[in-house]
């Protein structure tokens, strides 16, 4: 507390302060005429939590509630109309679109995913991994950290003879979608046996752990030596703080790359021109010498037809702000969660989709 406010507090009788606070609360409650609700992806949740206070400060007539529940809940509740924004790391499947043709898949940013591990003594070494080896770890064909396949990718690294503990998400998750898609695109056996989705049929590997949400993944890897996991980039600050290892991944061109300011935009640049009008596209395993292999659009699911014109116009206003470079897509927000802004051509498609809300 500052010197001045302390003085003020001493001088002003408590009752008056209380009354003033009460009036303020009433004032702000009556100012918000419309309430919008967001729920879904735990990866997108930190960004929404940065956006909402900034936006509602400038637009006191709107109140936006956010919740981190998981992409599946985001999708289901936006389809049912319980929430206006359903956050999801994965786009809707063809079957879901056929069932719910009024749903829009609106990208608001570009995200990426790390593969992290906890190898005592080796966490400062960026191990080289490719999709086949990671698929092997998760399907049980690569059991020990000193497996021949791992040694071949990492000559000179003293890999220990310890059992690999794989960690995967138990909840339905866009991160699982991205990860299993990376494995499907790089490993034929994985594609045939497991495939991809927000929740997949994890091969039965003894000792494999299921964790809940990105925070659960981070703490499971941190507390379990010799474990490996896939974690959304908005949790990079946490994984760095906990001293977890981060892998270099082999991209389509055969190079080993990590998430940085070159590799993620390179992958986005390769995939954005291929984005269709409804923007449902996988950006996993993009071509290009520098492309990082696991990136995706972060989606907000919105019903094109809203119950009334006022709600529709407030939703449009918020989304236009969210994707504008002066608003939600500015680096002051995105940098904090390590997301990338939408490239110009993707933004144009997104604005076209936003215009369909009525």
């Amino acid at each position, binding site marked *: 507390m500052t010197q001045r406010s302390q003085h003020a507090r001493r001088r002003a009788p408590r009752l008056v302060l209380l009354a003033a606070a009460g009036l303020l609360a009433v004032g702000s409650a009556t100012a918000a005429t419309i309430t919008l609700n967001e729920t879904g992806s735990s990866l997108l949740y930190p960004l929404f939590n940065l956006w909402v206070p900034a936006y509602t400060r400038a637009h006191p007539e709107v109140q936006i509630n956010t919740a981190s*529940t*998981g*992409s*599946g*809940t985001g*999708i*289901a509740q936006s389809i049912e109309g319980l929430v206006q924004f359903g956050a999801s790391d994965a786009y809707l*499947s*063809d*079957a*879901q679109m*056929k*069932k719910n043709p009024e749903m829009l898949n609106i990208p608001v940013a570009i995200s990426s995913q790390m593969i992290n591990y906890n190898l005592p003594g080796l966490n400062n070494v960026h191990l080289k991994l490719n999709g086949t080896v990671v698929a092997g770890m998760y399907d049980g064909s690569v059991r020990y950290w000193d497996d021949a396949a791992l040694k071949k990718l990492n000559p000179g690294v003293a890999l220990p003879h310890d*059992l690999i*503990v794989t960690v995967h998400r*138990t*909840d*339905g*998750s866009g991160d699982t979608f991205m990860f299993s898609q990376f494995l499907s695109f790089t490993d034929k056996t994985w594609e045939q046996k497991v*495939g*991809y*989705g*927000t*929740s*997949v*049929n*994890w091969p*039965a*590997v*003894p*000792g*494999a*752990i*299921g*964790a*809940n949400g990105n925070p659960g993944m981070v*703490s*499971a890897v941190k*507390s*379990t030596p010799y*474990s490996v996991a896939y974690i959304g980039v908005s949790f990079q600050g946490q994984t760095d703080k906990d001293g977890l290892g981060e892998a270099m991944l082999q991209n389509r061109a055969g190079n080993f790359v990590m998430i940085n300011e070159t590799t993620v935009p390179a992958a986005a640049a390769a995939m954005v021109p291929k984005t269709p009008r409804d923007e449902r596209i996988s950006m996993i395993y993009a071509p290009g010498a520098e492309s990082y292999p696991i990136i995706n659009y972060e989606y907000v699911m919105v019903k094109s037809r809203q119950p009334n014109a006022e709600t529709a116009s407030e939703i449009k206003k918020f989304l236009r702000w969210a994707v504008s470079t002066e608003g939600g897509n500015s680096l002051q927000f995105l940098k904090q969660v390590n997301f990338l802004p939408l490239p110009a051509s993707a933004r144009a498609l997104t604005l076209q989709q936003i215009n369909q809300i009525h």
Partner: protein
Amino acid sequence: MRPGDALFRVIVTAFAALIPLILLALLAFLVHDSWPALRFNGIEFFTRNAWNLGNQYGNPVTVRGEQVMPGASFAILFLIVGTLASSLIALLLAVPLGVGAAVFLAEAVPPRIRTYASLLVELLASVPSVVFGLWGYVVLIPFLSRHVYPHMARWLGFIPFFGPPSGSGYGLLTAGIVLALMCVPLIAANLREAIENTPQELREAGLAVGATRFEVVRKIVLPRLRLPLIGVSTLALGRALGETMAVLMISGNALNILPQNIYSPISTMASFMVSQLDSALQDPTNMAIYGIAEIGLALLLLSLLVNALARLLVPRSLSA
């Protein structure tokens, strides 16, 4: 009968009928909601390890007359094993501890402190399960996986299911221990009352024929506890079977795999329903949701079965 009495009778009967009606309504609702899954899965639901939502990005196909995603199958043997095994371990640990605590509280603690000590035990019984789960997650798992399980695997490896690998700490035994800690206060609090209800004459008679205090406890008090013990163990088992949050946090959430030893990750029916609900909501054919309703139905029937078995045990122990 006066009209007031008649009215009272009707009201009381209605309230009494409400409880079995709720149970019936629950059953009816679960059967209704899981009906497509019951037809699609058949008996294999209980005999195989195959919970698979299928290819969610494919197009729905018709199998056995039901719309499902390609490759979908729903079978939960591993959940039934995980649920029963963790609850059984919990009970094996909790019953001796609970009985010991109850005897200690009722017989060994000075009367002045007894009230407070008992109050503490009863307070423990009302701690929300998620707090136990959090404690297990933050404190117990790192401790057990580093300092206890590796030694157990090394020295007790000759016992089946106790050998290495000692795992990550998330798993069957950890779940059993935390569940046991949740059950101990329940057992102790109930048994303490039962012990205190032992007629004073019986104790005095025992002492009069020259029994020591320990012999009185062993030969007079404990045998009388058999009936309340069965009752309270059933309650505790019910709590363990249905426990959701704590198990979700510490079990390791294994999928489609049976535990290879007592350190292995498992999953239970209740916690699996919570963890899979989100993915199930994305199934455009809704079969995954029906499947989860079927797990709910199976869990309800399992609990009823366990309760019924406990009831069957009671008359036999009375005659013994």
